[in-house]
C-alpha cells in the first residue's frame, strides 16, 4: 500500500477529522418481541479509535452498529456522534457522513469501479473534477492500480472488491466508519493481508471505526477497544484487548476469549515493547580467559558471539573456550533470530523450539539488541499494574 498521507493533508478541501461516538443507555425493542434486541448499551469510542463489537451470533452486534447510521432506529437511549444525537438528523444526510462497509460489499454491478467510489461525492454534489481527483487518490490509498477505475466489479477479485468497498466508504472522508464483518468472506491468507493493510491505512487516516466481527482473534488484532456482547444485546465487557485478555469480567467473557487468552495476549506485545536481557556477549578475537571470567560472573553456560560489526554470529558453550581467542568457527550457528517487531508469541515459540535457550534479538540494521528468555516473556504476561 502506498503510504503517502494524501487523504488528510491534501485535496480540494480540508477533510474533517474523526469524531467521537457515544452509546448512552441505547435500547432496541421490535414491536411484538418479548425480548429486547439491544438492552441498555452504553460505551464511548474516542475519536480515531477502532471499536470492535464482537460476540456470538444473535448477540445484536450488527443491530447495534446499524443503529448508528439509522439503518435501524433505536427505541430508547441515544447515540451521539460528535456530541450530536443521530436521531436529530435526517437518515440519508447522516449516512452520507458515515462510511459503510458490509461483508458482501454491495458494489454496484452496473457502475465502473470509479463510479462506485464516487457514489457519496456525487450524492453530496461535488464538482466533477474534485470527485475525479478524489477517486484516483483513493485507488492509490487502498493500493489499487488506477487503471482498475474503468473496470466493472465483476472483473475484480474478491480482495480487490473489498479494497474498493473500503475506498468507496472513505470517499467523502467521513469522520466515522461502520464496518460489518468486512473481511468475513475473504480466504484466510488474503484476510490477514487485508487486515494488515487496513491497520496501516488506519494509522494514516485515523478514523473512528465501529467494526463488527464474530471472530475474537480478529477483534484482538483490529481493536483499540473491544465491546464483547452476549445474547439479548447486553454488553458483557468493554475494554482494551490487553485488559480483556488479562482480566475477563466474567465466565462468559473468559470462555469467549478462550482458554489460550494468555497466548493471545502475547500476540499484542512485541519484542520492541519489553526490556531485553543483556546476556554475556563476546566479540570474535576476545581472549578465552576473559570470556570465561565474564560467563562465570553471570553464571551462564553459554555466551553470544558477535562479529566486528556487532552482528550476532552464534552461541558458544563455555566448555568450548580452550585458551584460543574466541572464533566464530567454534560457535553453534543461531537457529533463529528475533527482531523488534517479532510478537512475544512468536518469540515464545522460537525459544521453546530451541530447548528454552534465550532468543537472540537484533535491531533493524542487524546489530545485536539483546536476549529474550522464557522468564522475560512470562513476566510480560502479568496483568497490567501488578
Amino acid at each position, binding site marked *: 500500500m502506498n503510504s503517502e498521507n494524501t487523504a488528510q493533508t491534501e485535496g480540494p478541501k480540508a477533510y474533517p477529522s474523526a469524531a467521537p461516538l457515544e452509546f448512552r443507555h441505547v435500547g432496541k425493542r421490535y414491536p411484538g418481541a418479548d425480548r429486547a434486541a439491544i438492552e441498555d448499551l452504553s460505551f464511548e469510542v474516542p475519536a480515531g479509535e477502532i471499536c470492535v463489537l464482537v460476540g456470538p451470533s444473535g448477540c445484536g452486534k450488527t443491530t447495534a452498529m446499524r443503529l448508528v447510521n439509522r439503518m435501524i432506529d433505536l427505541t430508547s437511549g441515544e447515540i451521539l456522534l460528535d456530541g450530536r444525537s443521530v436521531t436529530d438528523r435526517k437518515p440519508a444526510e447522516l*449516512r452520507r457522513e458515515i462510511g459503510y462497509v*458490509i461483508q458482501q460489499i*454491495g458494489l454496484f454491478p452496473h457502475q465502473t469501479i470509479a463510479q462506485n467510489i464516487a457514489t*457519496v461525492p456525487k450524492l453530496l454534489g461535488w464538482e466533477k473534477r474534485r470527485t475525479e481527483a478524489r477517486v484516483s487518490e483513493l485507488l492509490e490509498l487502498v493500493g489499487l492500480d488506477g487503471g482498475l477505475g474503468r473496470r466493472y466489479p465483476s472483473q475484480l477479485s474478491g480482495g480487490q472488491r473489498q479494497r474498493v468497498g473500503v475506498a468507496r466508504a472513505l470517499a467523502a472522508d467521513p469522520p466515522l466508519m461502520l464496518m460489518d464483518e468486512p473481511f468475513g468472506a475473504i480466504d484466510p491468507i488474503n484476510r490477514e493481508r487485508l487486515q494488515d493493510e487496513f491497520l496501516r491505512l488506519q494509522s494514516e487516516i485515523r478514523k473512528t471505526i465501529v467494526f463488527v466481527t464474530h471472530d475474537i482473534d480478529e477483534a484482538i488484532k483490529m481493536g483499540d477497544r473491544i465491546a464483547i456482547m452476549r445474547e439479548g444485546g447486553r454488553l458483557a465487557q468493554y475494554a482494551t484487548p490487553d485488559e480483556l485478555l488479562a482480566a475477563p469480567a466474567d465466565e462468559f467473557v473468559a470462555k469467549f476469549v478462550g482458554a489460550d487468552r494468555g497466548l493471545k495476549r502475547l500476540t499484542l506485545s512485541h519484542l520492541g515493547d519489553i526490556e531485553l536481557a543483556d546476556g554475556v556477549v563476546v566479540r570474535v578475537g576476545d581472549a578465552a580467559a576473559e570470556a570465561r571470567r565474564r560467563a562465570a560472573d553471570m553464571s551462564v553456560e553459554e555466551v553470544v558471539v558477535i562479529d566486528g560489526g556487532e552482528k550476532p554470529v552464534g552461541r558458544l558453550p563455555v566448555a568450548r573456550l580452550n585458551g584460543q581467542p574466541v572464533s566464530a568457527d567454534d560457535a553453534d550457528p543461531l537457529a533463529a533470530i528475533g527482531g523488534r517487531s517479532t510478537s512475544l508469541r512468536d518469540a515464545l515459540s522460537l525459544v521453546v523450539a530451541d530447548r528454552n535457550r534465550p532468543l537472540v534479538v537484533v535491531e533493524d540494521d542487524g546489530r545485536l539488541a539483546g536476549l529474550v528468555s522464557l522468564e522475560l516473556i512470562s513476566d510480560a504476561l502479568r496483568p497490567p499494574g501488578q
Partner: protein
Amino acid sequence: MSLALPLAQAEPVIPDFGRGSSCERNDDALFCWSWVKDNWSDTLQPALLQHIALTLIAISIGTAIAFALALAAHRRGWLTTPVVIVTGFLYTIPSLALFQLLVPFTGLTRTTAEIALVSYTLLILFRNMLAGLAGVPAEVRDAARGMGMTESQLLWKVELPLALPAIFAGLRIATVTVISLATIAVFVVDEGLGDPIYNGLQQTFSTELIAAGGLCVLLALCSDALLVLIQRAISPWARAVRR
C-alpha cells in the same frame, strides 16, 4: 382494401396503374418480384409503416402502464397478485373475441385495435419489470441506503439500471408478439400488414400474401435485433468479461 383486377391485355391505351405486372397476368409463379416493385409504394410500404405505428403505440402505452404497475407492486408487494391475475386474464382472452367485445364501445377504430394489443403486452412487461427489480441483490440495496441514497435515488440510480436486462427481455417478447398480433387488427381497422395478408388470402395469386407475411417476419426480426443492440449499449456492464 383494394383488389388487384387483371387488366385487359388488348387495350394498350389504358395506362398501366402498376398492379398488372406480367407474372400476375400469367398467374403461375409462386412469387413475383416485379409485383412487389410495382406495388411497394402504394400498398406494401404504407401497410408496413402503419404496422410499425400500431406496434410502437401499443408497446409505448403498454410499457407506461406496466411500468407504473411494476413500481407500485415493487413498493407494495401485496399488489403483485391482483395485477398478475388481471393482466393474466387479459392475456388469455382470444384476440378475435376481445375485438368483438370492444367494438360496441370503441367501434371499428384504431383505438379498438390498440386496446387489444396493449392488453396483451401488460402481463409480459409487468412480470419482467418486477422480476428485474426483485433481482437486485439485497446487499446492493443495503449498501445504497447505507451510503445515504433516498428511496427514489435507489430506484433510479441502482434498481432500474440493474433491472434493464430483464426489462429488455420482456420488451423483446412483447414487441415480437405485438408485431405478429397486429396483423389481425385488420378485422377492425384497415391498417397494417394484416391488410395485404388478408387480401392475399382471398386470391390465388400468392405474391401479395408472401410479401406482406415476409415483411411482418422481417419487421419482427429487425425489431428484436434493434432492442438487443439498444440493451447492449445501455447496459455494457452486463457483458463485462469476468476474470
